[in-house]
């Protein structure tokens, strides 16, 4: 409530009035990934805006279900959500999201030059609902290097080698999460027969527990894991355990927005959550340099903003290589036919 | 209610339990009144329905039918449409199973009725009265023990103290002294009497101890198989039971079949009994040749050395038992035994001695042989109030 903080220098009068109203609202409820509460993310936001950020962390699936049900009953208690792009498949078509893009109003946030490829990226095809602020190369496959030489997997086809039968674990592709994304990518890039062979004949063990997957590969319970989360692998690598990503040369690289997609739910009657002005402020802060520094630090991710440095502990292999063909898993088309095709195959082979 | 002076009025009270092997009503259509401030004893064989009657009066058992009123107000009537809850009935009760609370100390057990009383009683007064009570039952030195870390008799006394402490309008005592020794029993009996008379409590007491029943009560109700078969002041019941079972229950161990030989004047009878002749007094109305039974108390027979005498009955001492104030002899008289008690300085006999038995005709109780008649003639409502 003192002087206007530096990050929002040069805000319009409209911004100022929004900020004022937002401060009157006092707080903001964000449905975010479970990592955030134990970081300084909320504190950073409050320092910059004077608004309290309530992080409603917990089982993200359950939170999501709660958020959807509340919205349908016009009893939304969340203002914003940050995470994956699953809403593309349900809340967006159901009209339960409100556009984020029009609410970006600070010069700094909207300055396209500050963003990678000189574009602010939205996941949805209308370019306004799901704001994606980070981008990284996704190592779909990690191996335990004391069991498997990372270099021995030069081709994606190597995963089909019968010697890995029973030695692969994967994030459950039946759940709507990174496991399914990986399957979609496989299906799109290498065709249905690849997916059928990999998931149908390699005796893969599935889990929906991220920690468990990381643990498995670190211990060598399984030699190979598919669709683990880099953030979960990092601590093991840091302690010197032999976990290595593999990037076979014969396919595209996979890009991901991790958990950076920001979206604003709204009630079925089109009213927003309880703190709409604070939400606007957060959207702008999130897209600002300060916001991105804070977020990428908290999530060990790589921002799409060019003026935000890559956090020190982020492994270099996550930085997308410049000139490789890539499939962006954070794009609307993926959630259309590719999704339903893959599900069908997965539904047939994974039991 | 016909009698407003009576505290407890029972009408046609019946209780039937459900369950296997239940063939009769536990309490069967009983009616009686108890006058204000009196102590009435329920006497009767084990399982005759005493406890059930008391529990119905207390409201702990729901009657199958009948009416109960206390002090002119219905407690139970109309098949349950009137049914005053236990806590609202003006009663105190000692359970046959003492129902001492194991989670409270002896003191707390006894103080409880005072503590729940409305209007509140001051702490100091509760303490004082409880201590007084504990003193009276001889438990003062155990007051801090858990209620169940007491001997049987001590628990019974605690239960008694608890029932008496609030000086209720009606006191129900179910064998309150059964586990106490003679000395304590005397003391407790006196205490009950004292509290009862001081506060004019109407009391119903169940006991198996005849001496107690006779010594303590204003009236005695004799029950049998769920019914009331006799009632009266103690001495009457003892001296003039009106039925065979009453006679037997009241401790008259000897019965002798007889035929009237001669009807004398002033209702004196001369009988031929199975053991020998007997002259006795009896109500008028007997005629020569009639068959009857003579009841004789053990203490109304005397023994003598068998020497020729045609009036005395002859027998042989089969066994004898020392029971304190007297010796009890079992004298074999042909097929049956007679039981004889000799008090005081009477000569003693040895097993095997041939003896004469001298019945005291004036104390003999004569009952006609169509047994049960005397029960029938009992009025359905036995008004007991003075």
């Amino acid at each position, binding site marked *: 409530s003192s002087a206007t903080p530096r990050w929002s220098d040069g805000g319009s009068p409209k911004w100022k009035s929004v900020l004022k109203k937002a401060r009157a609202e006092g707080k903001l409820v964000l449905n975010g990934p479970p990592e955030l509460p134990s970081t300084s993310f909320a504190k950073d936001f409050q320092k910059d805006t004077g608004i309290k950020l309530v992080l409603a962390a917990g089982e993200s699936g359950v939170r999501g279900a709660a958020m959807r049900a509340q919205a349908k009953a016009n009893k939304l208690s969340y203002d914003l959500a940050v995470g994956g792009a699953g809403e593309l498949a349900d809340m967006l078509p159901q009209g339960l999201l409100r556009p984020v893009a029009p609410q970006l109003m600070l010069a700094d946030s909207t300055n396209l030059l500050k963003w990678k490829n000189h574009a602010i990226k939205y996941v949805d095809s209308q370019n306004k609902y799901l704001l994606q602020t980070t981008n990284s190369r996704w190592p779909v496959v990690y191996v335990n290097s004391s069991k498997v030489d990372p270099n021995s997997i030069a081709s994606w086809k190597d995963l089909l080698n019968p010697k890995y039968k029973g030695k692969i674990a994967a994030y459950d592709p039946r759940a709507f999460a990174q496991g399914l994304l990986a399957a979609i990518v496989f299906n799109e890039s290498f065709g249905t027969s690849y997916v059928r062979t990999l998931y149908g004949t390699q005796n893969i063990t599935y889990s929906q527990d991220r920690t468990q997957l990381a643990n498995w590969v670190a211990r060598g319970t399984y030699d190979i894991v598919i669709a683990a989360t880099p953030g979960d692998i990092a601590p093991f690598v840091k302690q010197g355990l032999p976990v290595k990503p593999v990037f076979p040369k014969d396919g595209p690289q996979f890009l991901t927005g991790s958990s950076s997609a920001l979206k604003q739910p709204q009630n079925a009657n089109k009213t927003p959550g309880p703190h709409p002005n604070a939400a606007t402020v957060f959207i702008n802060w999130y897209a600002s340099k300060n916001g991105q520094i804070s977020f990428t630090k908290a999530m060990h991710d790589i921002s799409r903003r060019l003026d935000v440095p890559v956090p020190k502990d982020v492994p270099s292999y996550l930085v997308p290589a410049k000139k490789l063909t890539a499939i962006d898993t954070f794009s609307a088309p993926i959630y259309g036919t590719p999704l339903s095709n893959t599900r069908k195959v997965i539904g047939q082979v994974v039991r | 209610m016909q009698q407003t002076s009576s505290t407890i009025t029972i009408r046609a009270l019946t209780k039937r339990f459900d369950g296997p092997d239940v063939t009769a009503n536990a309490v069967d259509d009983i009616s009686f009144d108890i006058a204000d401030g009196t102590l009435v004893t329920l006497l009767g064989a084990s399982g005759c329905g005493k406890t059930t009657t008391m529990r119905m009066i207390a409201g702990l058992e729901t009657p199958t039918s009948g009416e109960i009123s206390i002090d002119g107000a219905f407690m139970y009537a109309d098949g349950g449409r009137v*049914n005053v809850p236990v806590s609202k009935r003006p009663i105190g009760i000692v359970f046959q199973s003492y129902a001492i609370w194991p989670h409270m100390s002896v003191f707390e057990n006894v103080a409880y009725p005072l503590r729940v009383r409305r209007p509140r009683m001051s702490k100091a007064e509760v303490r004082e009265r409880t201590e007084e009570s504990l003193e009276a039952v001889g438990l003062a030195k155990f007051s801090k023990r858990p209620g169940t870390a007491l001997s049987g008799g001590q628990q019974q006394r605690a239960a008694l103290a608890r029932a008496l402490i609030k000086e209720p309008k009606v006191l129900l005592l179910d064998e309150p002294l059964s586990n106490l020794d003679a000395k304590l029993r005397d003391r407790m009996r006196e205490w009950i009497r004292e509290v009862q008379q001081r506060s004019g409590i109407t009391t119903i007491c169940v006991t198996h101890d005849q001496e107690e029943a006779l010594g303590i009560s204003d009236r005695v109700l004799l029950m049998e198989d769920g019914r009331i078969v006799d009632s009266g002041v103690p001495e009457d019941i003892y001296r003039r039971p009106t039925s065979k079972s009453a006679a037997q229950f009241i401790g008259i161990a000897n019965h002798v079949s007889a035929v009237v030989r001669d009807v004398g004047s002033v209702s004196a009878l001369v009988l031929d009994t199975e053991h020998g002749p007997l002259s006795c007094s009896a109500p008028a109305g007997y005629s020569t040749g009639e068959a009857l039974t003579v009841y004789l108390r053990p203490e109304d027979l005397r023994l003598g050395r068998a020497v020729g005498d045609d009036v005395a009955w002859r027998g042989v001492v089969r066994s004898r038992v020392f029971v304190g104030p007297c010796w009890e002899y079992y004298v074999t008289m042909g097929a049956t035994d007679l039981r004889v008690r000799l008090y005081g300085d009477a000569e003693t006999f040895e097993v095997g001695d041939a003896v004469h038995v001298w019945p005291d005709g004036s104390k003999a109780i004569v009952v006609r042989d169509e047994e049960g008649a005397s029960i029938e003639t009992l009025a359905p409502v036995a008004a007991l109030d003075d």
Partner: protein
Amino acid sequence: MSSAAGRVSSAWHARPGRHTGAGRVVWGIVLCVVVGVFTVLPAAWVIINSFNSAPPGDSFAFSTDGWSDIFSDPTTVKSIGYTFLLSLRIPIAMAIALAMTWAIVRMDLPARKFIERCLWLAFFLPALPVTLGWLLLADPDYGLINKLLHSLPLLGGVTLSITSVAGIMWVYISLTTVPIMVILLSASLRQIDASYEEASEASGASVPKTMRRVTFRLLLPAILTALVAGFITSLEVFEVEQILGTPVGIRVYSTQIFSYVGSVPPLYAQALALGTLFFFVLLVIAVAYQIQVKRAGAHATMTGSGSRVARRPRTRAAYVVSGLMLLYIAIGVALPVIVLILGSFSKLFGFFFIDSPWTTAHWSQVLHSSDFTTAARNSVIVGLGVGIVGTLLYALLAWTMVRTRIWGRSLIGVMVWLPWAIPGVLAGVAWLVIFLRVPGLSSLYGTLTPLVIVLVVKGLPLGTQMLRTSVEQVSEDLEAAARASGAGFARTFRTVTLPLISPMVVSVFMILFMTSMRDVSSVVLLAPPETRTLSLLMFSYATSGQLESSAVIGVMLAVLAMFVAGFASRIGLRMNMGQEA
């Protein structure tokens, strides 16, 4: 002396109007409706929506896809098989628990208090880190115990595999099933007058025979309740299977439901169809239970005449038994506790052999985080609130079922189980929809009330049934004596009934306290979004890969619970001086 001890007497609680025909029916219907709203409603929602292809909240779209899908899915059938196979742990645990209970209550065991405390502690331990701990200890490949076994000369060939049906059973048995059964059964056994057993032994029956023919027969209502409760919860849980069973392909029925719900969009129809199957299994069990309980009969085993809970003298057998139990505790409780504590101090949970594995960073991080104190406070508030409100309500309901003759008591007896008829995940969603949609209830949404209501309802089955068996054990005369002393119902209940059943009251309270503190999904769904509890924190840490911090909170939770347990049992003891300290 205790003539009327345990007299099978008819109701004396004959309040006017309540006892008579009409009153009994009216009160019965009122109570049935109240209980029904909170038990039948969610169950009905589940059954109806198993035929609904639209997501919850949308308008109903009839379809039988859910049902046909689950029956065409072979894993479902297999998972049901595994579920029932794993539920065999219940009778096994019951046998162990009965023996332990008897020894704890009836023998003068050395270290008996310690053993009892450890069982409580086992129950308070968080499942996730402990299960991972077991993995460290007994994984067939890298488990420490196996390494030890392999290094021993004679036992070289033996491998203990925790990732097996037996392993999963062991974790459940040692962590929850046995402790909870001992906690409940010992409360019940403490209410059985020792003289019944004394009479049997004096009749010439040996101790085991006496247990079989007298003790356990008198304990039967409690045993039945614990069995049924154990069985139903065994169908519902899956955390341990998830961790230990996944690598070896052991999937249970509730994992299946969980993954249906976890899909996007969630496959509710399929999940609810499975849930409905579960519901019918439970309904059959509940009705069978009700019939059995009726047949077993209610026996007042705590009489008003010198109920003593005598302990056998301390003989050599006592030392042997105590030794065995301490061994069990060392393996089943101490080992996991040690792993948990080590885990909280390690840089990487479970990797104790890396260079410089130890750190206190997680402790300082957790304890200094601003969330921690708020979360601890919230947890305690929710735990105490639910614990106290719930225990009281269950006790009242239990008393009503035992002591009054209102209409529909058997119906209530069955309905009371229903909150467990729906697996947790589904119940949460059902409640969410109910609290968002049902007029009247919806105004409560956004406060803590729905959470408290749901947690109280969740505890209803076990709490009510166990307290019911406890009230049955108390001779009516003990309450009657209070009524005859002039105490009204409330006073009698507070000063006589509750203290007499205080061991069970304390047990039920602690179980409720702990399950409420532990709850995650109801908090997420029903509490205001800013509500933080320790379990939620623990869960967040765990799902974001910070197992060490989650272990820190696990330790704190257990410490907190032990503290509350000590306090609760002290209160219980103060209520009931007849109970030994």
